[in-house]
């Protein structure tokens, strides 16, 4: 496996082209911690929910092409997104364990002058931060977040299928909780912690998607959550932009801030909400920021 001196950063299409402030917060946090990253000419991962459903072979080939770019430099990939992470990891493992598929895909890649080797690893940013160490992260914390109650939402593609991704417990993940705790905030228990945000089925039909989201929100609110902390841009968009619809669907009103883990960490390091672009969130953060001592 590749050496972990510098990672190839894989922001993905959703973060790169829709929610750049998430990428900004991640880069700032990595800089502060001294986690080195560099860029590459990656294309779409492609999406494990959408594109894999359309054509599995094309999905494998495009995923493999991205992997070859990192292989060329002998560096592991660091993903900021559950979807990209799952795709790249699944493709990497599938091709590494199936000679027949590998041959088939390499025939396709030959056309663009590439060959999949299987020489690098793919990491989710939560794994990387957790390997770095919650205790070491704690040393950088300057802001007091004690008393802040956080509903952690890992989303589905970070830790499942567990035999392949091997990041965390598939039904009781702990790494996100430990990283949130490192900022001084308190991760709470809520009954629907493992429930999907509903983004996937939303591509097909809105009502069940909004109902899943509403069930998730209600359970966290009932447990006293002040904010959600998420680690996937698809979950982020679903949860940040659809609060009104989820409310209408379920006769509720939801007003709950959604933070990316790297945003919470950046704030805990004393970074300024403006430089993080927090004003671009759809679910307003004003109240949360004032309450927690930011101007």
């Amino acid at each position: 496996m590749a050496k972990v001196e510098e990672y190839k950063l894989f922001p993905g299409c959703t973060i790169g082209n829709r929610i750049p402030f998430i990428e900004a917060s991640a880069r700032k946090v990595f800089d502060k911690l001294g986690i080195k990253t560099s860029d590459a000419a990656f294309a779409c991962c492609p999406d494990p929910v959408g594109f894999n459903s359309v054509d599995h072979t094309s999905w494998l080939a495009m995923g493999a092409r991205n992997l070859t770019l990192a292989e060329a430099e002998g560096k592991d990939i660091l993903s900021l997104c559950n979807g990209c992470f799952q795709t790249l990891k699944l493709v990497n493992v599938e091709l590494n364990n199936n000679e027949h598929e590998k041959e088939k895909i390499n025939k396709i890649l030959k056309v663009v002058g590439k060959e999949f080797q299987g020489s690098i690893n793919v990491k989710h940013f939560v794994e990387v931060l957790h390997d770095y160490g919650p205790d070491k992260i704690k040393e950088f914390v300057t802001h007091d977040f004690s008393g802040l109650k956080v509903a952690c939402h890992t989303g589905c593609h970070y830790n499942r299928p567990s035999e392949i991704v091997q990041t965390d417990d598939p039904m009781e993940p702990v790494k996100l909780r430990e990283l949130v705790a490192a900022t001084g905030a308190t991760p709470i228990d809520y009954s629907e912690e493992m429930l999907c945000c509903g983004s996937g089925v939303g591509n097909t039909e809105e009502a069940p998607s909004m109902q899943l989201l509403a069930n998730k929100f209600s359970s966290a609110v009932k447990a006293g959550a002040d904010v959600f902390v998420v680690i996937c841009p698809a979950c982020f968009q679903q949860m940040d932009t659809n609060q009104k619809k989820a409310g209408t669907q379920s006769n509720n009103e939801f007003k709950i801030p959604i933070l990316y883990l790297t945003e919470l960490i950046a704030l805990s390091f004393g970074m300024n909400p403006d430089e993080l672009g927090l004003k671009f969130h759809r679910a307003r953060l004003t109240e949360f920021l004032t309450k927690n001592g930011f101007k």
Partner: protein
Amino acid sequence: MVMVDYELKKKVMDANIHDALKYCYQCNRCTDVCPVADLAPNRYNPRNLILNSFLGLKENIFGGDDSFNIWGCTMCDTCDEICPQKIELTGVFTVLKNMSIAMGEAPEYYTIQASAIYDSGKAIPPQPAIERRREQL
């Protein structure tokens, strides 16, 4: 008369799931934990999909009034995790979805996104306004 489609049988059996599929004993754990089956039990049922797939009962899967019975899956991978027989259900569902696309029965979202990826290499093409926002941060 029940029609068995051997092409379908072969495809799902081949789908990188080795021979695990034939060990499904219809225990229903997958459907028990499925959040979509919980909300819409009459419209989506993963256990049923697995049964019809390995029996090759194509008509029970495709060509219905809507394709929610296939595309209702929210891809949470919970069933994969819970199945006592270690069947990778979503691997089978990917085969069914690929077939549904080929038959023109899939929801629009999927074909539109796929064309964007084939055209530009990105599911979500860059937009000037977002690019500017990106520069500022």
